[in-house]
């Protein structure tokens, strides 16, 4: 177990270092630096810009800047980590992201939670009903859902549920007029109403992917001897499926959840854009439109780091959930 933890931590560190390097290169390849944006503003003189550059270290040689960039990241001195200035928000990039990251995490965690539960349930049911007409139909539907890009599902859900039938809010995270006047429970319900469509869109695709993996994992476990023993003991079929087979297939499900994080994050970018959910994805896409390079690259960096850490955590959890791995280490 300790070896797994160490190797997984090392791998996550390599990924973060690579992404940080890439972000650094791109920051300096991109036209201008964070302070040339204020060129648009005539009241910012060349003197002020030079002072700002010196203050943030942009006047030093590139290798020195690079070492400082990586060192700040490695020491986890996030306060010292210079992500730059966002001219579209007129505040430091760090402040912008600090307010957006929790919203993305809420969206992704809800979608992942819903998708895992629904996907495991669907996959278990499919394994139990293997070969039946309904099982085949649900499998084809899952493949169809996986063939649809997130933005298409999101646009469809928005057009039908929010615009045509007016069941749910069209955009945003809270009601812009009523939210502040509501009680605590009312505000939670307000966020939930806004969360339903974006999280549901992502959860639908997660369900489809998880059910496909879980179905094959269950089919691999069902012929095993301990399952036959349980059946021979007279354990009911539901108990066999839930207590014995499901318990064993849980490890793969967690691994899959970890492997799906990159795709889920990519999907969140579209879903946030379409539903106006104020998370990192929406911030990033709008920053691209506003040529706010520091904000774009910082979002990519933070997003990749979060996904890498999530993947590492999932792999360790999968090992914990699997009695064979736990016993061996």
């Amino acid at each position, binding site marked *: 177990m300790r070896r797994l933890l160490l190797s997984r931590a090392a791998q996550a560190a390599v990924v973060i270092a690579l992404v940080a390097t890439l972000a650094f290169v791109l920051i300096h390849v991109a036209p201008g630096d964070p302070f040339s944006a204020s060129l648009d503003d005539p009241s910012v003189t060349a003197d002020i810009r030079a002072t700002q550059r010196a203050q943030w270290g942009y006047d030093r040689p590139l290798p020195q800047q690079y070492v400082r960039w990586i060192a700040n990241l490695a020491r986890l001195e996030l306060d010292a980590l210079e992500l730059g200035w966002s001219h579209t928000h007129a505040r430091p990039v760090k402040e912008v992201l600090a307010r957006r990251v929790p919203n993305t995490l809420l969206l992704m965690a809800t979608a992942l939670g819903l998708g895992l539960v629904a996907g495991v349930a669907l996959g278990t049911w499919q394994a139990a009903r293997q070969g039946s007409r309904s099982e085949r139909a649900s499998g084809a539907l899952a493949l169809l859902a996986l063939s649809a*890009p997130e933005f298409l599902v999101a646009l*469809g859900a928005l057009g039908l549920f929010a615009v045509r039938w007016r069941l749910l809010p069209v955009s945003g995270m809270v009601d812009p007029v009523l939210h502040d006047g509501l009680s605590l429970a009312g505000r939670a319900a307000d966020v939930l109403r806004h969360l339903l469509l974006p999280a549901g869109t992502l959860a639908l695709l997660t369900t489809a992917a998880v059910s496909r993996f879980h179905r094959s994992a269950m089919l691999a476990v069902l012929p095993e001897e301990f399952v036959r023993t349980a059946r021979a003991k007279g354990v009911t079929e539901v108990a066999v499926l839930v207590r014995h087979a499901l318990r064993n297939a849980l490890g793969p499900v967690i691994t899959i959840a970890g492997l799906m994080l990159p795709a889920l994050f990519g999907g969140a970018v579209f879903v946030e854009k379409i539903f106006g959910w104020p998370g990192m994805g929406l911030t990033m896409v709008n920053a691209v439109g506003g040529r706010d390079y520091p904000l774009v690259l910082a979002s990519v960096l933070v997003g990749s780091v979060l996904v890498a850490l999530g993947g590492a955590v999932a792999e360790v959890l999968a090992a914990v959930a699997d009695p064979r791995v736990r016993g061996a280490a």
Partner: protein
Amino acid sequence: MSSEPFAGLARAMVRRVLRSTGARVACAVLALFVIAAIAAPLVAPYDPTVHPDPVLLKNLPPSAAHPFGTDPFSRDVLSRVIFGARVSLGVAAASVLIAVSLGTALGAVAGLAGGWVDAVCMRAVDAVLSVPRLLLLIALVASTGPLPVGGIILLLGLTGWPATSRIVRAEVRALRERDFVVAARAMGVARHRILSRHLLPAVAPQVLVAATVAFASVIPLEAGLSFLGLGVRPPTPSWGSIILDGADRPAQLWWLVLFPGMAIVGVVFAVNAIGERLREAVDPRQEASR
């Protein structure tokens, strides 16, 4: 030293795919799209980029004259979807070719070399795979600025190789110890010849499966980039950019979302279905679990 057994496998794969009705339908759907893409100027009723009458002919719902309606610039959506097939399928095919070639080459080198070369390559693959590809592409496009179609193909190709390389590497490592390779090596056959005559033909079926997966994932990716305004630039129609034209009013301008959307889902679903049958043909154990 012939590649006869592999030709036999190829025939068996084709037979197996065509045996299932679902896959036959999928092949027909795919063929339809490819023909539409190639013959676009002949089958499309209108010019996809000309704005005939931005006042009277804009945002028309589907009718006999415009079966898929018109867009906010009064262009015929059916013609744009047909010409969009050229762009979307062309970009996907070209970038998959780049990605799969790169992936095969890297995977074969890593698998054959073993040792630290292999370790470094596979760590790099793990690293690239754990970064969301969309974020990588957004960062790249944001720093290069708007790209021509060739640039989009290159970016998609250069970010798509890791999955293939992992499959090829595993396959090459397994084959390396097989008798026919060991025998060839013992006879003094040169390394590059072993690779080109023995290993590559043997991994070809797996590469084909990897290519279908890559194709099915790059179509939505290109559409998504174009939808965000970061991919194929207007007025060139791509399925993603047609949807973008209707994205701010998806309920009112539903024909701008539905028809190109159906094209995307149709192609991806067909490729996925064919890919699944191919995978069963390559690895018959898969079928036992169905």
